[in-house]
């Protein structure tokens, strides 16, 4: 590991931990939430804040430790931001098509596919 300013180290570390945390929470959500539609919300966390934090940590780390701009990572997040909603939409449609079970508390009806 290259030498980093202590403040930078703290920031990078915190970002990393945040990333890990949100990823883990997303996964816990995937396990714990009652029905498919609820679970569909879990990965958005992993995607957005989880990977987002890790990516920013990485960019900061490399930019600060080498002194050269390191920004490629942002494309990964950008790509995930672009595509994750589509995946979610598609999965929801598939679930509605298959008429998967919903938790009893759910208000409203899914659409027929």
């Amino acid at each position, binding site marked *: 590991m290259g030498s980093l300013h202590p403040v930078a180290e703290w920031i990078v570390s915190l970002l990393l931990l945040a990333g890990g945390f949100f990823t883990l929470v997303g996964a816990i959500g995937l396990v714990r939430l009652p029905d498919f539609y609820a679970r569909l919300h879990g990965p958005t966390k992993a995607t957005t804040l989880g990977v987002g934090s890790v990516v920013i940590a990485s960019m900061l780390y490399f930019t600060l430790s080498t002194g050269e701009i390191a920004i490629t990572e942002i*494309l990964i997040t950008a*790509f995930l931001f*672009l*595509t994750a*909603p*589509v995946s979610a*939409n*598609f999965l929801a*449609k598939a679930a509605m*098509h*298959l*008429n998967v079970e919903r938790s009893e508390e759910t208000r409203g009806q899914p659409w027929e*596919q």
Partner: protein
Amino acid sequence: MTLSLVVLLPFLGAIAAPLFAQAGRTAIAIASSVPALLALATLFPMWSTLAEGGAIVQTLEWLPQLGINFSFRLDGLSLMFALLILLIGLLIILYARYYLKPSENIGKFYAMLLCFMGSMLGIVLSSNLLLMMVFWELTSLTSFLLISFWNHKQDARRGARMALAITGGGGLALLAGILLIGRIVGSFELDVVLAAGDQIKAHALYPYALTLVLLGAFTKSAQFPFHFWLPHAMQAPTPVSAYLHSATMVKAGIFLMARLYPALAGTEQWFFMVSFTGMATLLIGAYVALFKHDLKGLLAYSTVSHLGLITLLLGMGTKLAAVAALFHIINHAIFKASLFMAAGIIDHETGSRDMRQINGLWHFMPHTATLAMVAAASMAGVPLLNGFLSKEMFFAEALSLNLPGIWAWVPPIVATLAGIFAVAYSARFIHDVFFNGAPRNLPIYPPHEPPRYMKIPVEILVVACILVGVFPAFSVGPLLQAAASATLGGEVPDYGLAVFHGFNLPLMMSLAAFVGGLLMYSQRHKLFEFHARFREIDEKAVFEAVVSWVVERARSLTALLENGSLQRYATLLVLSAVVVALAPLWGMTLIGSDGLTPIDWPTAIGAAILIFCTFATVYIRRERLTSLIMLSVVGLFVSLTFARLSAPDLAMTQISVEVVTIVLLMLALFYLPSWTPSEDSKARHVRDLTLAGVAGLGMAAVTLAMLTSPFSSISDYFIENSKPGGGGTNVVNVILVDFRGFDTLGEITVLAIAALGIYAMLRNRELQAPSTDGQGHPWAFDAHPTMLKQMSRPLLPLALMVSAYIFLRGHNLPGGGFIAGLITAIALLIQYIASGNHWTQARVNLRYHNVLALGLFFATVAGAASLMFDYPFLTSTFTYLTWPVVGKFEVASALVFDLGVYLTVVGATLLALVSLGKLTPTGRPMSRTEARQES
């Protein structure tokens, strides 16, 4: 090479003869006789050399490695046979001219006959045993074709096949025998072999060699128990029977025994095998002949019997017996050929060969009858005819055999008994055909004499019978002397070729045979009744039954082994590999000297997930989609493994390929059932689990041993030369496009071919698409949801950008043409998924065939550029350019090669996927609106 000319002439004639087919039967017969006449003319001047017991040997090298040469030898023995072949051959040619109908394919007949003649001449004139073998089998083949000349008849076909199987098969045994002799002697040249008789007989391999050679001889000469093919070969046209089955081919076996007499004869084994076989054949043939109602059948069995007689004589091992054998060869050929021809005339003129129908022909064709009766008398051994002389010699030899005790009686008794039968069947031939009342139900009635010229061959032969019978010494004496000398290897014993040797024991035996034979014939009705009690065996039917049985057994055995079960074949394959690999690995040290390295937790968890999901893929395999999802996880973690273990290029390739594979599998899953039925037996599961388990454990053990053992490789070279020699810092990529660019060329060719093959395989195929999914849900209507469609639009340029980036950096950083190609392909694939085949194809405006071909073109051109500078194919070059703004950058020819890779990947991947996608039945509703309109 005059001798080779003798052999060659008939073959040349065989090519020429059919050319005369248009000119009529006479023309073709004349044309066919020319080669024989020329051959005779060639042989004639050589007689002077042979008369003194010499031999002419002419050799031309052919295949010295094999010991096979074009070497020919003319001595007394071969001359005797050559004359028989040529002279009787000429008569047959003449005879066949009248025998065959104009409507028959006479050109083919003469061609084959001449081929046969050439082959026979080859046998008798060869001075190299292997060369002789060549001609030996050629006679089997040509006789097969001649016997089956009337191949519309089932009997003819079967008879021919049986003859071929027996004689051809015997020929293979003979081949083995000859090869053994060659081993013993070190040469296949007859001179050497004949001179090495003592060496051969003393050799450990002698019993095998002798047995094999005799197998060949016996089968060819229809010796018991192989005699049965000969009577069935009588389905041949009569000229063929007369030629092959009396005078020539069946004598080839006899000839062989005579030829190898100095080399092989004179041992106990020879004596027992040859004489006993001969004796059995002599008796059985003679016995059966009497009961044959078929004229040719009688003659055929008579031939069998006489062949046995000659064999017996050769087996006796005495020189006088050998001379008698030779003498009888000549005599039998003469009278039997004439008898066959006479039988053919009768058949020709009456339309029948059944002696129960044919009676009293004396009345209708007295001339032919006379000829036939003289010949038959000769067969019976009537004095003043040639048959008598050799038979007397035979009786004398039978008496002179020095067998111990009561065995001494056996040969004379057998000989006399055979003589009795011979007289009886000869008497039947005369009486039953030419007398015995009037003809019954003849197809052609009334019969009359045949055309004048058809009888000439018979007349000539009958005259010969008498000539030899009355003036033996004058007519055949010199020839016999020369032949005997050649057979016996020089010393010829004193034998008297007189008509009358005084009242001695042999004459008594002749007399007894004569009287006994006539008596037997007079009592024939009782005998026939007796014989009729035994069920007659049709050997042909037996042969056919045996062949059918073998075919059926073979078929069921084949079906048992080659049962069309992939599971079995695959099991065998895996099992083979496991078995052969396990042996050397057994007891191998599992952990080598490098030892183990510790593992960190995240890696351990990754490994656990990988292993778990692999098992899950198997465990859940019957639920196909779930299994597929599990497989995706495995693929993802394999990619992570590559990343974890320093292989970014592999990680990228793996993840891209994996996704395309999953898409492919899903395309397939649409048409395949979504469930796998449970159908394998428990035993099979256990077996497969065991096999897979052993394979898995073995691989794990090998991996462990491999990973922990020290290692050095040629790779240092790549690392050192990648930058200076290949112009790139990504060593893997430099290996792919430069050091081992040829592998990559092959690899993209594979990809291109696979796509073409897939395209070809699916073209014009209709697949039944299920209307519901595995759980019975009907498919949704919405084919192209808005969000995906909208998102896919900006995705394409973005992905192309990424693709370009991955492509350009590949030489120095992870990436390259292959991965870039897959990204491009996937970017387009998303368009297909999002907007459909039709929409996308309209915008792509490319034939993917051309793209992949262009890729191969670029790769080839990039590789071939170096040829212009006389550097090898695929030699790359690179240079650094400096441009304003851009700065210093690298230009590498390998990039063009990589462009080829890129294009091939794009073309191939899309061609394959889109071909599959095109299978989807058209007309499925694409939206709810459409669906509503439908209903």
